[in-house]
């Protein structure tokens, strides 16, 4: 397969996954903001959202003060923000268009249709009228493109590069989500005395779980009240939780193996090592060394994997 084609496929799926995760995050923040809470708490949610995506600076430069409506606009439909849902869906479609011959008609039409509709929804102010419905729509379109991909694509290199993009992006996004949400309550991580705060905690943790469709999963797996360290364990270490870091890395490793070439040995070793650490890691050890520090180095390593994949497969080798 052409290196350039693989590059487009890889990024096409990264952007699709990113749009979905941004919608998940915004949805949870929006739902939480409807609960009774102090201004400061409400604000911290939106702040966290911007810092998760490393967009605090460009947001402030453009809008100054943090305000729920403006943050949502910025993250949904601002074309100058490369991480906005609109930008991601556009980028996914542009990448698809560049290699539409490598896709099945159904995959291409799904991405093209998503792009056509998101443009219309933004123009018709559908998102302002009903944000929750809009976020559901984004998630739904992402489910659809994932389904049409595994349901129609030949299981060859093209599919493996697409899946590689999906899971590398997901590992990144989940890690950021966990990082910022735990960071927000760092001060009273264990045992809050105040009843009101405990209540807040419940909503806080359940919101995180919901953002990764993990609320019911948590109940099923732990059959217990929601405890932060278990939330962390579920999202980081559980191999059977589809949006966890461990599960994402499993997919990265297996797809990488399918496309391996002469120069990718080191990349495979690094991916395998990262996966093994998740496989044999324990949540108490991670928390003892500091969750933030742990996730920071994890994100660095995911980033490094991305750079290696790019170098081994996607950037044309010089003559």
């Amino acid at each position, binding site marked *: 397969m052409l290196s350039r084609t693989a590059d487009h496929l890889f990024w096409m799926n990264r952007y699709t996954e990113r749009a979905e995760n941004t919608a998940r995050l915004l949805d949870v923040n929006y739902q939480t903001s409807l609960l009774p809470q102090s201004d400061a708490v409400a604000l911290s949610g939106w702040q966290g959202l911007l810092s998760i995506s490393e967009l605090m600076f460009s947001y402030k430069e453009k809008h100054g003060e943090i305000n729920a409506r403006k943050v949502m606009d910025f993250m949904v439909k601002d074309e100058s923000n490369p991480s906005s849902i609109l930008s991601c869906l556009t980028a996914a479609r542009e990448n698809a268009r560049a290699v*539409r011959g490598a896709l099945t008609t159904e995959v291409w039409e799904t991405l093209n*249709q998503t792009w056509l509709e998101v443009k219309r929804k933004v123009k018709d102010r559908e998102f302002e009228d009903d944000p929750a419905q809009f976020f559901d729509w984004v998630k739904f379109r992402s489910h659809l493109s994932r389904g049409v991909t595994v349901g129609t694509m030949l299981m060859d290199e093209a599919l493996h590069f697409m899946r590689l993009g999906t899971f590398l992006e997901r590992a990144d996004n989940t890690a950021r989500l966990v990082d910022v949400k735990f960071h927000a309550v760092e001060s009273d991580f264990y045992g809050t005395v105040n009843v009101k705060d405990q209540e807040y905690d419940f909503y806080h943790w359940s919101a995180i779980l919901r953002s990764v469709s993990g609320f019911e999963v948590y109940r099923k797996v732990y059959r217990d009240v929601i405890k932060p360290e278990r939330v962390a364990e579920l999202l980081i270490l559980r191999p059977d939780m589809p949006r966890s870091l461990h599960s994402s890395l499993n997919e990265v490793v297996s797809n990488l193996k399918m496309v391996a070439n002469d120069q990718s040995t080191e990349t495979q070793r690094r991916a395998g090592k990262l996966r093994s650490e998740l496989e044999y890691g324990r949540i108490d050890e991670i928390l003892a060394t500091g969750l933030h520090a742990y996730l920071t180095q994890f994100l660095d390593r995911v980033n490094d994997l991305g750079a290696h994949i790019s170098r081994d497969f996607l950037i044309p080798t010089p003559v």
Partner: protein
Amino acid sequence: MQKFDEMYTQLPYEFFTHGAQIRDHYKIYDEWLARQPGDMMAKRREEAEMIFRRVGITFAVYGDKDEDGAGTERLIPFDLIPRIVPANEWRTLEAGLAQRVNALNRFLHDIYHEQEILKAGLIPREQIEKNAQFRPQMMGVDVPNQVYSQISGIDMVRAPDAQGKGEYYVLEDNLRVPSGVSYMLEDRKMMMRLFPDLFSMHRVAPIAHYPDLLLETLRESSPATTAEPTVVVLTPGMYNSAYFEHAFLAQQMGVELVEGQDLFCKDNFCYMRTTRGPQRVDVIYRRVDDDFLDPTVFRPKSTLGCAGLLDVYKAGHVSICNGVGTGVADDKSIYPYVPKMIEFYLGEKPILNNVPTYMCRNKDDLGYVLANMKDLVVKEVHGAGGYGMLVGPAATKAEVEDFKKAVAANPSGYIAQPTLSLSSCPTFVESGIAPRHIDLRPYVLSGKTVQMVPGGLTRVALKEGSLVVNSSQGGGTKDTWILEDDRSAAARAAQSQSQTQTSVDTSAT
């Protein structure tokens, strides 16, 4: 002026005389149309647009912006009313097209080798050698099958003769990178989806096997050294106006769609960069003009091609389709000589008509053109896509005067032709169903043999009275139906039967 319509025997068509004024091959269609409810066409058109947009069948217009300024993707206007051609007319066209393309390929081989036709004095030497499309680099270069133009788009029009009957003329040969075949295929798909009942009432010759024929032609054109040639489609990229078609054809043939940056030349072979290292390329179906193919030979700043490609081509290690230098044969200044080429190379009488053409480089012709410009169509010799031409009867006085100056200043840069009254075909426009002018571009494939699918792309000038059918100038497209009769159906059946037979034979040996 005499008029000829494909469907009605006279215009304006009067609805109450229903049936009497309909040409035979349109009778079933006309009866069907009369039975449809009034809003059917509008509904179907809406449906078609929705599907085209979702499928992303678009083209880009140079220097244009969408309402929201976001991009330049437009849908090609597609008309719901088919252009129908009876089998006997197509038989003549098919024979004439094969003859013409054969002669043009013989001419190209001759021009880049012995130049017999120049020695015989049939075409003035300077008209070839001073032609900007003549590539001296190609002198003495041998290409597979001695074929230069593997894919030829021959633009045909129909106009009334003295008796008011329709007569086909070749308006232009396109031997560089003719486009539009994807619209031909998609228009058919759309028509079958929108009007399945019409297809059960007519015997419409199928065309969906075009990509197979194209792949076969390209594989037949590969350098002799490879048994299993790797074919690629070379595109300038996704912002090119015909990108959809490039991607479409690559996908339909199951070959890679490459850009210049994906290719490199090393040790006199051409390779593409893949995730598993370099892979050799044998046949390049290029959708990039000569000028951009190789920066070391042509435009040095172009990044659309690949450095060193021409050397690999000349060494016979890669095939470029269409070949380099075909432009010298489809130039408007060479067009008037095509009937002579047919006689010279094939010893046959031309089957298809040329439009009478005045070459302004000749003094007599120039005088006539300047004196009668308001009745003529004047074309720049190197113009394409409907740019750089003047339609005398439709032009203002000032426009005519401006063109006269331009022609007088550079006579050899122009030709002129009488304004043909292009045939019309009923078309569904804003005001309802009305006649609009059309042309026809069949796609002729030349590998070891000449092949084509029945019909081609019918383009229609959507503006009332307009004669310009180019999509960049507000033209649309129509599905083209060649109606089979018993003879053509039998011929097709025989062909597919003999193909099965051959494959049985090969498997037995």
